[in-house]
């Protein structure tokens, strides 16, 4: 997909001016936060489970090489194949080779962010293979030629009248006069249309929430059942997963599962948690005849051992974006690549480079809500700060900001000079306010005052006021 992260500012301006998007984003602000809060309140052990989940992933990351080897061994024992892919291109080629092997025309797909990361759909189309997204949200955005705007709710930027328009446009074999005003009718129509596609497909592709070293299994967590139909009906099941998805045992997966759905959708458990191991067994009447795992690095191994290693604990629940005031304001597409919100602001520069993704870590007020709700306790604000430092060191941010910061730093490192300058500046600003309480325009601060007013100072600096107050308190004390 085309990367528009460098145009984050322009993307955001467009998003703020888009009434359909702003209406749809209201569903994020109201729904997710309350549901999560309720699910967490219902489980007194939630905080301890967070610590347990974090410890498991930390342990895996510091032994990732060994767990990957152990996992691979078990996949092979169960009759599956593992394809180690260093880059997105390696992964695309490995997938294509498997599909070509059975002369695949149609490939069904369960919801998977990693296949977005490797831009698999575009690649399939170029190679004459039809990819069919089967998750309702993914199906809708595929019809629109869009990408997900949220990692667990891909079509959250849309309203139902937009979906109705798309269904009428694409499902033109159905009666034009049919009633599609209710979401139930839209879901039923998608269900009917997609049913035949599951049987048509030669290959089914899913992602993985976990890979289990103990058993060589992959685990997916879904609500619709499409991920299961995608993997049990076609001849071949391909799992695409990145290397940090591995956990030691099924019991470890159980620990993390307890915080995953609660953090994501506020469910105790998602409807379907599916553990898949190898191809169908002798005597099995259904299930795929081949089972392949595309094990993708694509930049993750370079994050190990750095200040960004903690990001590899991420289990893609979406809680950080559900609670982010910036995401609430601009939605997911403004971030310009696969992963939006706070997790995207940290991960995107790691995966596509700080030169392209450098704006994203700046899109934060550092309010800290993302870290406070992250089930894996990932220090997202701290890592965004690391990126800002790197961006600054490499001179990637604009000159005005750089010189402004340097000027500010010059004063900030010299407290006396700072206080002196403030003591000169504040009364001057008071004079220039001409008695008004707010500035609607200030020289050199036009970017700020264009969208909001700056309160006018009252004439004394904070330090002056503090000293006066201290003096009064001392006199008042007996």
């Amino acid at each position, binding site marked *: 997909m085309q990367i528009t992260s460098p145009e984050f500012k322009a993307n955001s301006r467009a998003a703020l001016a888009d009434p359909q998007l702003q209406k749809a984003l209201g569903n*994020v602000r109201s729904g997710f936060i309350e549901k999560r809060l309720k699910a967490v309140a219902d489980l*007194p*052990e939630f905080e*301890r*489970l967070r610590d*347990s989940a974090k410890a498991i992933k930390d342990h895996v990351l510091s032994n*990732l*090489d*060994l*767990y990957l080897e*152990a996992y691979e061994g*078990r996949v092979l024992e169960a009759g599956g194949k593992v394809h*180690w*892919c*260093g880059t997105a291109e390696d992964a695309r080629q490995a997938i294509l080779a498997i599909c070509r092997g059975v002369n695949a025309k149609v490939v069904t797909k369960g919801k998977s962010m990693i296949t977005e990361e490797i831009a698999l759909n575009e690649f399939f189309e170029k190679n004459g293979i039809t990819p069919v997204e089967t*998750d*309702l949200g993914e199906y*809708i955005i595929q019809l629109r030629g869009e990408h997900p705007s949220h990692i667990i*709710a*891909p*079509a959250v930027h849309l309203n*139902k009248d937009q*979906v109705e328009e798309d269904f009428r446009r694409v499902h033109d074999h159905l009666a034009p006069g049919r009633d599609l005003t209710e*979401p139930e009718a839209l*879901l039923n129509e998608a269900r009917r249309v*997609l049913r035949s596609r*599951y049987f048509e497909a030669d290959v089914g592709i899913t992602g993985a929430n976990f890979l289990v070293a*103990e*058993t*060589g299994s992959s685990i997916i967590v879904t*609500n*619709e*059942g*499409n991920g*299961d*139909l995608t993997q*049990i009906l076609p001849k071949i099941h391909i799992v695409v997963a990145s290397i940090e998805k591995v956990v*030691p*045992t*099924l*019991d*470890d997966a*159980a*620990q993390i*599962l*307890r915080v995953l759905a609660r953090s994501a959708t506020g469910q*105790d458990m998602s*409807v*379907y*948690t*599916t*553990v898949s191991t190898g*191809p*169908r*067994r002798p005597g099995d*009447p*259904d299930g795929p005849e081949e089972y392949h795992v595309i094990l993708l690095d694509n930049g993750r*191994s*370079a994050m190990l*051992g750095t200040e960004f290693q903690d990001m590899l604990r991420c289990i893609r629940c979406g809680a950080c974006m559900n609670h982010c005031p910036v995401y609430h304001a601009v939605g997911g597409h403004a971030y310009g690549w696969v992963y939006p919100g706070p997790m995207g602001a940290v991960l995107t520069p790691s995966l596509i480079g700080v030169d392209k993704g450098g704006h994203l870590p700046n899109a934060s007020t550092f309010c800290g809500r993302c870290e406070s709700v992250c089930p894996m306790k990932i220090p997202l604000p701290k890592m965004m700060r690391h990126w800002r430092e790197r961006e600054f060191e490499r001179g990637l941010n604009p000159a005005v900001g750089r010189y402004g910061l340097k000027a500010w730093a010059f004063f900030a490192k010299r407290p006396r000079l700072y206080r002196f300058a403030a003591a000169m500046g504040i009364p001057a600003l008071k004079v220039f306010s001409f008695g008004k309480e707010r500035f609607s325009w200030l020289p050199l601060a036009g970017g700020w005052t264009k969208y909001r007013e700056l309160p006018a100072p009252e004439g004394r600096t904070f330090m002056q006021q503090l000293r006066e107050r201290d003096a009064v308190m001392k006199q008042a004390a007996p």
Partner: protein
Amino acid sequence: MSGREAILAKVRASLSEGGNDPARRAAIEARMAKPPKGVIPARGKLPDDARVDLFETLASKFAATVERVRSHADVPKAVAAYLRAKNLPAAIRIGADKRLAAMPWDRQKAMEIRNGPSDGDDEAGVSHAFGGIAETGTLVMTSGKDNPSTINFLPEHHIVVLEAADIDGDMESVLAKVRKKFGKGRMPRTLNFITGPSRSGDIEQKIILGAHGPRALHIIMVDG
């Protein structure tokens, strides 16, 4: 260098670890053989009756319907009554599970029983659960000819027979039973944890039941 070796070499370089450290390897093997006991919620540790009641409460909360019967002999009658109540034809898809086969289906004269995996044209499928998890009201299903996975997903109505005695408090206890039945480190092709009927919230975040999987999940719990 193959993709495999290149990735492992990069991971090791980033971790500043060598490839052949027997102590590290022994430590992860030991941890996989005996995972540390994690945090088990108190509600996953209830005694017998309370555990079964919690399963029923939570499965119902997540939109499954639960019916309790006294013995295996009551199951076919309950299935027939469910189909009638839902205005469905008296026909079911069923695998080769011996416990299901031993039930008195012949007493339901009008019932058509189709055997084998679902082909997508079944209104109702009947499966026998491997177990249940009380802490989340979850059914546990294993694939194979006894209970083909397609029956879990293709029919509009999924009817699941569950022995009350097979309900465990927490997920880890069920996983221990899976290891015992299939062998440590070995698994059936598919292990499904199912919590309620299929649903989607993808249109304006409104939850609607019956997405791609069954529209309804009916659990017949055998108490005997």
